[in-house]
């Protein structure tokens, strides 16, 4: 909770930052104010391109190459950073203000041991002797619940896992006992089950030393666990500032509400026995002897959505590749409308290919940047249905209207579309083939919340109108709730369970499903506290 009696540690007034692109300077932070008191944690939330990281780095007086702080005041503990010499600024970094980066694996120097890197700044500033600093670092490793805290520091960065590295980086930031730590999306690259552990460790240590922090993320549920106050940022401007609980219970701005838009959709699941696709006892491997899939069985009812959930490496995308024939199974078979499909792509008929379509996670790379929307949607029409000339144009236009776009988009290139529009064009391309089944591989995870909501609603509407079946691959439980009829949980290449949404989402859970579901952060500031208490008992 914010406490107005505490001393102000960081104060930013009307900060403006310019970025250089397209041969000129653009304003990317447009006059933001920020106040942080000692011992307080500020959550900085916003979607991609909102300027969160840029603002976070500015709190250290730092601008990445190609950026410059053009005006405004940044006062840290009474000192004006924008007036300081380069050297004085540098002397604050690593001693009084520290930084925890998103990609731990890339941010550690591969040539030095973790312990040396942890104490580097502390020793450099002569805050402690090298031996004391190392002893202290080992204690910090222990506080952060790293395995084998005495010896883990003797390892090299590539020898420990991502979640562990992220905690070592927190220890590195904490080593000099700074007044302020900037956490820049520290858990974004981690799986949900690992994220919980790292979040808990970070929160505990920041509390222990009463360090102030700025926690940058795009995930409101995560920031709710960490922050006392939340600042919502969009297009380089502040949208809303509020204490965490007030923000969650009573957001003032529509944009803030839209940040959890996906959680507002909930589909009523409907059972069905008409099976369109069946994956039967499939094993698969990428060459070599290591199996990526082991005895996978999945049934997909017609006109319904089957969500395949699991963490990275669980084999959910590999399952999709096996169904499409890109990675022929080494064992088992895939039945489509009761008929076995040839295992390999090249042995399938054009008609079989037409019936199963695919939509990708990154719409950017799923469309040829040199083709126009007309080419992209028109090609399947031409290829499968043999359309040409005005008939082709008319059909492309129909499809554009179906996905809520108009003819002004016909001749645009992918680079001239927004993220949501790109994904819509990909959906239209899949629809153009008049498929029975569409495999959606994390189709919303790269999109902003409000855009995700639009895409999910569109998919639901299309299913209602056209009776299309979806296999929906995702790691996001909110999306699963929004769209699925049935759920398949995968872990280490195996199907843990398959069943209706109601059955899977309600206890009793198998062990892994329990872990997975309970690790998904909720919009409740007490969620992490409760979860840890529950797990401890």
């Amino acid at each position, binding site marked *: 909770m914010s406490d107005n009696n505490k001393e102000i540690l960081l104060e930013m007034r009307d900060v403006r930052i310019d970025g250089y692109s397209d041969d000129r300077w653009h304003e990317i932070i447009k006059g933001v104010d920020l106040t942080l008191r000692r011992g307080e944690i500020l959550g900085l939330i916003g979607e991609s391109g909102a300027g969160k990281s840029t603002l976070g780095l500015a709190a250290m007086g730092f601008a990445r190459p190609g950026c410059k702080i053009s005006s405004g005041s940044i006062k840290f503990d009474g000192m004006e950073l924008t007036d300081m010499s380069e050297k004085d600024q540098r002397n604050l970094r690593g001693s009084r203000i520290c930084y925890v980066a998103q990609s731990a694996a890339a941010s550690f120097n591969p040539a030095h041991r973790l312990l040396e890197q942890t104490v580097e700044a502390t020793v450099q500033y002569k805050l402690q002797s090298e031996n004391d600093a190392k002893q202290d670092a080992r204690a910090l490793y222990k506080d952060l619940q790293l395995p084998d805290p005495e010896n883990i520091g003797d390892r090299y960065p590539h020898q420990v896992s991502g979640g562990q590295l992220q905690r070592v980086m927190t220890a590195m930031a904490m080593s000099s006992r700074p007044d302020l730590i900037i956490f820049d999306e520290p858990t974004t690259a981690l799986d949900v089950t690992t994220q919980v552990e790292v979040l808990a460790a970070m929160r505990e240590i920041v509390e222990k030393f009463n360090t102030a922090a700025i926690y940058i993320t795009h995930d409101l549920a995560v920031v709710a666990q960490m922050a006392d106050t939340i600042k919502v940022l969009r297009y380089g401007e502040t949208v809303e500032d509020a204490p965490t609980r007030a923000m969650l219970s009573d957001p003032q*701005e529509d*944009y803030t509400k839209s940040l959890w838009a996906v959680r507002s959709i909930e589909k009523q699941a409907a059972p069905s026995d008409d099976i369109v696709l069946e994956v039967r006892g499939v094993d698969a491997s990428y060459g070599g002897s290591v199996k990526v899939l082991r005895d996978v069985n999945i049934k997909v009812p017609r006109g319904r959505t089957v969500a395949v959930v699991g963490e990275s490496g669980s084999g959910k995308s590999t399952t999709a590749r096996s169904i499409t024939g*890109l990675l022929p199974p080494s064992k088992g078979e895939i039945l489509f409308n009761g008929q076995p499909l040839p295992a390999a792509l090249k042995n*399938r008929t054009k008609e079989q290919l037409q019936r199963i379509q695919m939509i990708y996670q990154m719409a950017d790379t799923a469309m*040829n940047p040199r083709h126009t929307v007309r080419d992209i949607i028109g090609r399947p029409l031409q290829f499968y249905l043999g359309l040409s000339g005005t008939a082709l144009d008319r059909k492309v236009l129909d499809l554009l209207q179906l*996905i*809520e*776009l108009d003819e002004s988009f016909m001749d645009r290139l992918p680079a001239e579309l*927004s993220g949501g529009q790109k994904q819509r064009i990909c959906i239209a391309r899949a629809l153009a083939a008049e498929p029975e089944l569409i495999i959606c591989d994390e189709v919303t995870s790269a999109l902003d919340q409000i855009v995700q909501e639009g895409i999910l609603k569109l998919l639901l509407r299309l299913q209602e109108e056209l009776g299309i079946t979806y296999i929906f691959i995702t790691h996001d439980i909110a999306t699963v709730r929004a769209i699925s009829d049935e759920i398949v949980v995968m872990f280490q290449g195996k199907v843990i369970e398959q069943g209706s949404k109601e059955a899977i989402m309600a206890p009793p859970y198998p062990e892994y499903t329990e872990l997975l579901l309970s690790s998904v952060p909720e919009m409740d500031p007490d969620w992490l506290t409760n979860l840890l208490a529950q797990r401890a008992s």
Partner: protein
Amino acid sequence: MSDSNNNQSTNYTAAGEVTLVKARRSFLENLIRTLKSAPPTAWFGMVVIAAYLFVALFAPLLAPHGEAEVFPLAYAPWSDEFILGTDALGRDVFSRLIYGARNTIGIAVATTLLAFIIGGSLGVIAAISRNWMDQVLSRFVDVLMAIPSLIFALMLLSIFGANAINLIFIIAVLDATRVFRLTRAVALNVVVMDYVEAARLRGEGLGWVMRKEILPNIMPPLVAEFGLRFCFVFLTIAALSFLGVGIQPPTADWGSMVRENAGLIQFAEYDLTAALTPMIPAAAIALLTVAVNFVVDWFLHKTSGLRDE
């Protein structure tokens, strides 16, 4: 916070989503815009290249004398009739310089084109197929590249004999290895893209994927590479001709002209212009290479800048 942002969250429409739609321009407008923004070095390069092409195309009209026309006056000094004097056999150096543009540039362009046709097509095929053929081609190229190309060229020329046709084929094949590597590498970056997978899932044939999906996306680096390869080929051929195993007399060629007149350098004390005679074809080679390098440098800067957007 601005009102437009507000409206968007309340009345969300897919079509209204904010996009950076660039103003559409015709090809010509784009070209003019691009040229206007070119730095002076690039302008210099383009003007020089244009001038060379002009001289190469209209050599017979521009040259005062014939390519191999012999005058009974060996090592004539610079004069109105023989602007740069004559060589050991009494041929007009200035005319040979002009004809040399046509021969030297022509042979280098032909060689580079051939290298790109061989290396480029094999590179794209290797990148798409990723099978035993890719393995065989890649290993073969590794071995060929393990021998310095000038040494390899010298060896092959000693076997097959030095003439223009052999020269073109030998250098083209040796240079194709580098083109192969680059094309394969950039094509591999495109092959892993989802849109190529989407095309394969649709059931498209190899030819379509190559032409429609891959080729348009690997053109910018290949165009830049064409410039760099041209410089390399041009310098290699010049070096071989200079060594006397490249383009053979009486064909006028800058590399051999340097060799033929090199002895004049010793007379710098007595007649500086004579000493400059062998330097002029060498400078002609250098100037064109500098010009191409400047243009390629600008082009690379331009295309890599676009990628950052």
